[in-house]
C-alpha cells in the first residue's frame, strides 16, 4: 500500500458531539447544585463558584476578594492551615483557586473513593474558615512579597499597567492581587465581612462532575453542603463591576514602563470593547482567530514567521460579564520594538475593511474554533468547569451544542461588520515595558505622541 503524496488526504465529516446532560438539584437547605456524569476514569471534580471576584473589591481595598479566597484554606474548626493541606494531600486531591474579575472559583479533584472526604474538606474550607489573625498576618505578608516579586516579571508589570490604562478607576482596573497600599489597609474584619457577604448559598454555584450517577453526585453534595445555611445579614454586593460603565476619556495612545537594559520589550496594544453577553460574540471569536487568536493568524505570521521579531504574538478578548478588553500581546526583541508596533497597528486596522478575511482565512479560523471542539470536554474537571462557565455568563444548558453551528454561520461580511463595530484603531492604547533609552527615538516614528511614562508600581 503506497501513499498518494500528490495531495493531502480528505478529512471526513466532524464526528457527532453531545455535551453530557446537566442535572439540577436543590439541596435540603435550598442550595442549587448541578451535576454532570463523566465515566472514563474513577475521578470526581467539585467546582464551587462564588459570584464575587476582584471586580467586587472596594475601591480602597483592591485585593480583598483574592486574599479572602487565599485565607479560606488556612484553617477550619480545629484544623490548622497545615492540617487542611495534610487532609488534601492524603487523598491526593488537586485543589485550585482562581480569582477572576467576576467570580472566585474553587476546584477540587480527587479519586472517586475519596470523593466524600474531598467534598467535606471543601465545605469546611469555604463555609467554616477559621480566619485567624496570625494566619492573616502571614498570608498578607506573603502577598506583599509576591507583589514585590511581580515587579521583576515583564508580563505581570505589563498586565497591571495595561488594565489601569484601559479602565482607570473602574472596578475591573486592577489585578486580583491588588496593590501594596490596599493590601496594607485590609484588616481581618474586612475579610470576615467579605466572606459573610459573598460566600453564601444564594450567591454560589456548585457543580459536581465525575464517575458517579447524578443521584450519587447529588447525595455527595447533600452530605457535604446540606448544612450550609444562609447567614443573616445582607448578601447584596456593592454594584457589581459588570454593571458599572467605565468613564474612559483618555488621549493617551502610548505608554512606557522603563526597564533599563531589558533584552526584550513586552507589548500590549488594545482597548475596551463589549461584554461577554454581546450577540456579536461568535463573530468576534472568528475575527480574533483570523487576527491573532491562534498560531496561523495574521499577527503571529507577520511578527514571528515573516519578520522573526518575537517567539510568539497573539490577540484575545479577556471576557467579562461587563465591558471587556481586547488586546494584543507579544514579547519582542528590543531593537524591533517600533517595527513590531507598527506592523501590529497596521494589521489591527486592515481587518476592518481594507483587507477583509479571505475565504481561506475564514475556513481556517472557523475550523480552529469548531472542529476540535470535543477535546475541550475530555476530563471530569473540564466538563464541570464548563458547566460553571454557563452559570457565570447566564448561558443556556444547550450552549455547547449550539456553539459549533453558530460559529459556522459567520461569514466574512459579519467579521468585517463586528470589526467595524468593536475595533477602533484611533482608540488603541500601546504599552511597552522595555528599555526606554534604547527605543525612545524609534517610538517617535510611530506618531503616537509623547509616551506617558509609568513606573512598575503604577
Amino acid at each position, binding site marked *: 500500500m503506497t501513499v498518494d503524496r500528490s495531495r493531502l488526504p480528505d*478529512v471526513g465529516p466532524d464526528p457527532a458531539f453531545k455535551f453530557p446532560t446537566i442535572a439540577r438539584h436543590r439541596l435540603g437547605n435550598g442550595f442549587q447544585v448541578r451535576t454532570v456524569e463523566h465515566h472514563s476514569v474513577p475521578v470526581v471534580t467539585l467546582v464551587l463558584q462564588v459570584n464575587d471576584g476582584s471586580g467586587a473589591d472596594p475601591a480602597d481595598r483592591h485585593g480583598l476578594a483574592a486574599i479572602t479566597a487565599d485565607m479560606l484554606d488556612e484553617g477550619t474548626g480545629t484544623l490548622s492551615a497545615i492540617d487542611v493541606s495534610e487532609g488534601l494531600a492524603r487523598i491526593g486531591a488537586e485543589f485550585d483557586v482562581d480569582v477572576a474579575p467576576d467570580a472566585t472559583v474553587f476546584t477540587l479533584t480527587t479519586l472517586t473513593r475519596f470523593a466524600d472526604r474531598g467534598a467535606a474538606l471543601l465545605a469546611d474550607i469555604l463555609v467554616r474558615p477559621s480566619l485567624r489573625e496570625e494566619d492573616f498576618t502571614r498570608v498578607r505578608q506573603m502577598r506583599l512579597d509576591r507583589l514585590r516579586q511581580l515587579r521583576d516579571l515583564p508580563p505581570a508589570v505589563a498586565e497591571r499597567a495595561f488594565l489601569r490604562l484601559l479602565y482607570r478607576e473602574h472596578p475591573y482596573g486592577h489585578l486580583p492581587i491588588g496593590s501594596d497600599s490596599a493590601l496594607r489597609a485590609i484588616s481581618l474584619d474586612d475579610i470576615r465581612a467579605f466572606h459573610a457577604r459573598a460566600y453564601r448559598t444564594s450567591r454560589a454555584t456548585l457543580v459536581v462532575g465525575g464517575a458517579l450517577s447524578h443521584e450519587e453526585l447529588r447525595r455527595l453534595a447533600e452530605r457535604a453542603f446540606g448544612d450550609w445555611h444562609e447567614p443573616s445579614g445582607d448578601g447584596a454586593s456593592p454594584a457589581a463591576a459588570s454593571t458599572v460603565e467605565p468613564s474612559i476619556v483618555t488621549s493617551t495612545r502610548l505608554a512606557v514602563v522603563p526597564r533599563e537594559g531589558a533584552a526584550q520589550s513586552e507589548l500590549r496594544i488594545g482597548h475596551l470593547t463589549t461584554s461577554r453577553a454581546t450577540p456579536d460574540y461568535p463573530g468576534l471569536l472568528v475575527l480574533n482567530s483570523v487576527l491573532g487568536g491562534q498560531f496561523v493568524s495574521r499577527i503571529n505570521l507577520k511578527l514571528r514567521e*515573516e519578520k522573526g521579531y518575537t517567539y510568539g504574538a497573539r490577540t484575545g478578548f479577556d471576557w467579562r460579564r461587563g465591558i471587556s478588553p481586547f488586546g494584543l500581546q507579544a*514579547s519582542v526583541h528590543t531593537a524591533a520594538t517600533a517595527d513590531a508596533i507598527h506592523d501590529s497597528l497596521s494589521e489591527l486596522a486592515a481587518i476592518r475593511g481594507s483587507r477583509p478575511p479571505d475565504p481561506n482565512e475564514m475556513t481556517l479560523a472557523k475550523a480552529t474554533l469548531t472542529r476540535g471542539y470535543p477535546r475541550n470536554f475530555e476530563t471530569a474537571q473540564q466538563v464541570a468547569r464548563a458547566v460553571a462557565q454557563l452559570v457565570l455568563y447566564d448561558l443556556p444548558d444547550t450552549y455547547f451544542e449550539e456553539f459549533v453551528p453558530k460559529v459556522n454561520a459567520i461569514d466574512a461580511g459579519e467579521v468585517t461588520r463586528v470589526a467595524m463595530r468593536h475595533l477602533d484603531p484611533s482608540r488603541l492604547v500601546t504599552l511597552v515595558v522595555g528599555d526606554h533609552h534604547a527605543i525612545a527615538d524609534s517610538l517617535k516614528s510611530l506618531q503616537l505622541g509623547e509616551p506617558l511614562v509609568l513606573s512598575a508600581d503604577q
Partner: protein
Amino acid sequence: MDLPFTKHSLANGLDVLVHEDHHVPIVAVNVWYHVGSKNERPGRTGFAHLFEHLMFEGSEHHNSGYFPPLQQAGALLNGSTNADRTNYWEVVPTSAVDLALWMESDRMGHLLPALTRERFETQRDVVLNERRQNYENRPYGLAVMAVTDALFPPDHPYHWLTIGAADDIRAMQLEEVQAFFRTYYHPANASLALAGDIGTDAALRLAEKYFGDIPAGTRPQPVVAQATLGREIRLLLEDRVELPRLYLGWHSPAMFADGDAEMDLLSDLLANGKTSRLYRTLVYERRIALDVSAFQNSRELGSFFMLVATAGPGQSLSDISGAIDAALAEILDKGPTATEMERAEAQAEAHFMYRLQTVGGFGGKSDQLNAYNVFRRDPGFFARDLARYRNATSESVRQAAERWLRFDARVALSVVPRGQAASALPGSAAVAVS
C-alpha cells in the same frame, strides 16, 4: 490501574503503539525521536531544539506551514525538546487521523527538500527571541543554566541547556542542520503512538500505510557520559531581581534507576506543598523564606536534584541554607515518618490515575506510552512505574537521601539583586552566564 496497548514494529524499525479509548471522538498522534540536546557537542549547542522549529515549516509534499491543514481539520498540535528526546503531537477529530499521519510521515521521510536557507534563518531568529524571552529577560532565568554548568563538566551533554548558547545558535549552518536530520530523524530512532477513538487494527494499518515506505536509518550510538562532584561549589549570580534566592543542586540517580523514585518522593516531602517539611519550617513557622520547591529532574544519563528557596525581604540566604541543612540532616538520620510515606503513596496513586484522563498532548496517554517505549523499551511500564512508588519505604528514601544529598558534593548558587553580592552565601564565586 493500567495503560493497555498493542505494540508492533514496522520493517523499517518504527515502533507503533496503539491504545483505544472511545470516550471522546478524538485521536492523539504522538511521535518521539530519541534525540535531544544530549546529542549535541560543546560549541554546537541548540541544534535539537532549533530543529524542532524547522519541523513545522513544511516538508517535500506539503511545502508550506505545518499548522494550517491540521488546524483546518480541528487539530491541536505542538512539539517540545529536552535533553533526552524530542516529541511532536496532534490531537485530531477521529475523522482527521489520515491527515495527521500523512503530515507526520511526510516530515519524517521527506523534510530536507523543503528546508530552505530562508526558513532556517527565520527560525534561528525566532529561537533567539525565545531565548531572550524565557531566559535572559526573566528573573532568575539564568539560574538553572549556572547550576548545570557547574554540576556537569564542559564536555558532558547536560552541561548546556536545551535552548543552547546564543553564540552557538548564531553560528549554526544549514548544512549542519541537514546532517543532524539524517542522523536522528528516521524510523529506527522514532516511536509512534496512537491513542483514542480508533480501533487497533485500523491504527496499525494506517501506520504501515503512511510510515512503512520510509527508509530505515541507522540507530544512533547511545551517548555515554559521567559526572561526579567531589566538593561543595558555591556560586553567585547577580540578576535583576528583588529578592535573593538559593539554588542547591546535586547529582542523582538516572531516570528509572534505583533511587530515582525515592528522590522524586523526597522532593515532595521536603519542599513541595504546604505539607512539606521545608515549607513548614522556612515559610510557615520561621517565615524566613517566601517559597520553597524541589524537583528530581530525571534524565537518561544521570539526573540532578534541585532545591530552591527565595528569601523573604530582609532575610539571609545563610539562615535559609542552615535550616535546609538541618532538615536534610534529620531525613538522613531518621528517614520520612510513616505518615509521610502514607501520604506520598496516596498522592502517587492519585497522580497516576489523573494521568489516565487525557489521550494526547504533553503527558497524555500517547506521550506516556512513547516515553516508556523510548526510555525503557517497554511501553507497558506504567504499572511497574507506579509500583516503584508503592514499594518505596522510609528506609529506601533515607538511603537515597544519604547517598545523594551530600553536603560536600553539591552546587550552591546564590542569585542576588544587582549590587548586593554580599547577600550570597559566604565564599561564593561570581559566575558569568548569558
